[in-house]
């Protein structure tokens, strides 16, 4: 229990507060703004408000888009028909899941059709909406043509339509798997802007490896998935080395804090871990399956790491302003 206040103690305390307030404006506890500093270190940008659905969409769109590419090229080179069929199904399932994830993220999901009010080349979000719509349509048509032919419908028109829609699904699929890099690269968030050239290939390769990994996990342990797996893990290893090597102030969210930890884990999983598991022991099903699982997990985590890094980057005005002063942010 505290003692009752002495008479005059309140006045004494008030005097102390007034004295501290007038004499101590430069008191060490008073935060002050120095020349060329930020405003009390508060964020000068707004962090992304996207929910968990958006990074997952980046992943699903990447895998679905590349699956359409693999399906078309596989069909062209007369690969295992079962694998081609599975790829076309993967493209369609992705094309169905992606819009659901995007609509769920909207602040007003009932207004999702407003995305198709305008066709705006300057807006990667608008382009993405149209790419996704086109991809979904082509993926559905391609699968329909494929399944009808399997069911015995024999028509030259159906065969030609099948090839046409598979090709168009592949073209839009390549865009779907890479545009997400443009989407976050052409923003005001410093760490994304600084990587705008590397993000599209980074995401595309991640989608390529993810699609090959799903095939392997489904049992297609054939040379072509091994080759694609090697390619994706190899490129991601090089990218990871590049990210580890580059330590500019703007890259801090990729190395520090929660986003940095996630980024490192994702990079190791879809890079060196997936690569080494493919090498040792060479080509055994266990090694390949483990490599595929590693890559897939790393691919998902990587998208979350990039979004988290964007949040951390938006909260760091110091490096943002310094980079602008140094002319590093000029287009």
């Amino acid at each position, binding site marked *: 229990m505290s003692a009752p206040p002495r008479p005059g103690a309140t006045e004494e305390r008030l005097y102390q507060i007034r004295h501290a307030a007038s*004499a101590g*404006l*430069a008191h060490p506890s*008073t*935060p*002050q*703004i*120095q*020349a060329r*500093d*930020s*405003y*009390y270190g*508060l*964020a000068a*940008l*707004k962090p*992304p*408000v*996207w929910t968990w659905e958006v990074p997952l969409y980046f992943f699903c769109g990447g895998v679905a888009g*590349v699956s359409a*590419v693999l399906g078309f*090229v596989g069909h*062209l*080179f007369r690969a295992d028909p079962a694998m081609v069929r599975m790829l076309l199904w993967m493209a369609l399932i992705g094309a169905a899941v992606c819009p659901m994830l995007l609509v769920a*993220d909207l*602040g*007003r999901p009932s*207004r*999702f059709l*407003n*995305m198709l*009010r305008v066709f705006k080349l*300057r*807006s*990667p*979000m608008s382009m*993405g909406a149209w790419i996704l719509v086109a991809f979904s349509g082509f993926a559905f048509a391609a699968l329909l043509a494929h399944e009808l032919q399997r069911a015995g419908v024999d028509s030259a028109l159906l065969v030609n339509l099948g090839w046409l829609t598979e090709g168009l699904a*592949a073209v839009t699929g390549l865009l779907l798997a890479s545009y997400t*890099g*443009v*989407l976050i*690269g*052409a*923003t*005001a968030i410093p760490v994304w802007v600084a990587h*705008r050239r590397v*993000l*599209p*290939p980074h995401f*595309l*390769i991640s989608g390529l490896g993810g699609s090959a990994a799903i095939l392997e996990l489904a049992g297609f342990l*054939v040379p072509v998935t091994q*080759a694609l797996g090697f*390619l994706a893990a190899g490129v991601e290893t090089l990218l990871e080395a590049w990210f580890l090597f580059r330590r500019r102030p703007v890259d801090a969210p990729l190395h520090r804090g929660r986003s940095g930890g996630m980024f490192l884990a994702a990079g190791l999983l879809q890079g060196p871990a997936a690569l080494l598991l493919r090498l040792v022991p060479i080509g055994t099903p266990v090694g390949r399956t483990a490599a595929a699982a590693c890559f897939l997990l790393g691919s998902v985590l990587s998208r979350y790491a990039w979004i988290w890094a*964007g949040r951390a980057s938006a909260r760091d*005005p110091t490096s943002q302003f310094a980079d*602008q*002063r140094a002319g590093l942010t000029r*287009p």
Partner: protein
Amino acid sequence: MTQTGFLTDATLCIGCKACEVACKEWNGVPADGFEWSGLSYDNTRSLGASTWRHVKFLEQPLRAGPQEAATGGPFRWVFLSDVCKHCAHAGCLEACPTGAIVRTEVGAVYVQPDICNGCGYCVVTCPFGVVDKRPDDGRAFKCTFCYDRQKVGLKPACATACPTESIRFGPLAELRQEGARRVEELRTRGYADAQLYDPASTTVGGIHAGFVILGEPENYNLPPAPEVPTAYLASAWTSAFLSAAVVFVAVCAAFGLT
């Protein structure tokens, strides 16, 4: 119609926050929390979905022009009412995929609340960190430049309420001249670090809400060289198309060789 603008002068602001209150009152903007920040008298902290005017309080160990402070060392207290910049090339407007964000006849950048579907892309494409999504509503909000008041010939609420004319409203071209004149005047009166904040030489191409400030823009969390994100589109798309082509060739090679 004539392009209108704001000119907000830090050397005239007394930090009364009448602009914040008038804006909330007129526009029916909801409360945005009652928290003590511990940062001078600024408990608002930043602009946001429910804060369209924000008075900043800078406590600096510097001299304000010829003024002497009785605090032992040099000290100045500077206030500035921040607001949406209504950029000539606005990142939010360029990025909006629904066409909800438009430019009005007075040159302001306006979010149409009946179109916005809350995709959140404007939030990350504003180089000034102004527009934000209101969590309970789901849509993006920011300063409307009192579009409704301007339509009937009234001044925006904040400029009307400002008791010191720190917030000036008028034809944009005149205000830009006025800003340059004011900086000149302040400098001759001993405020050597007075300057006009209007990033016209970057891809933003100038702002419709300029500021007369003391010291560097960074002190006010105003970016020294903001760029409109569309300026990065060419390099990012080029990379996307090139990598798509390379990956296609690589996939063909993988299928062809195995």
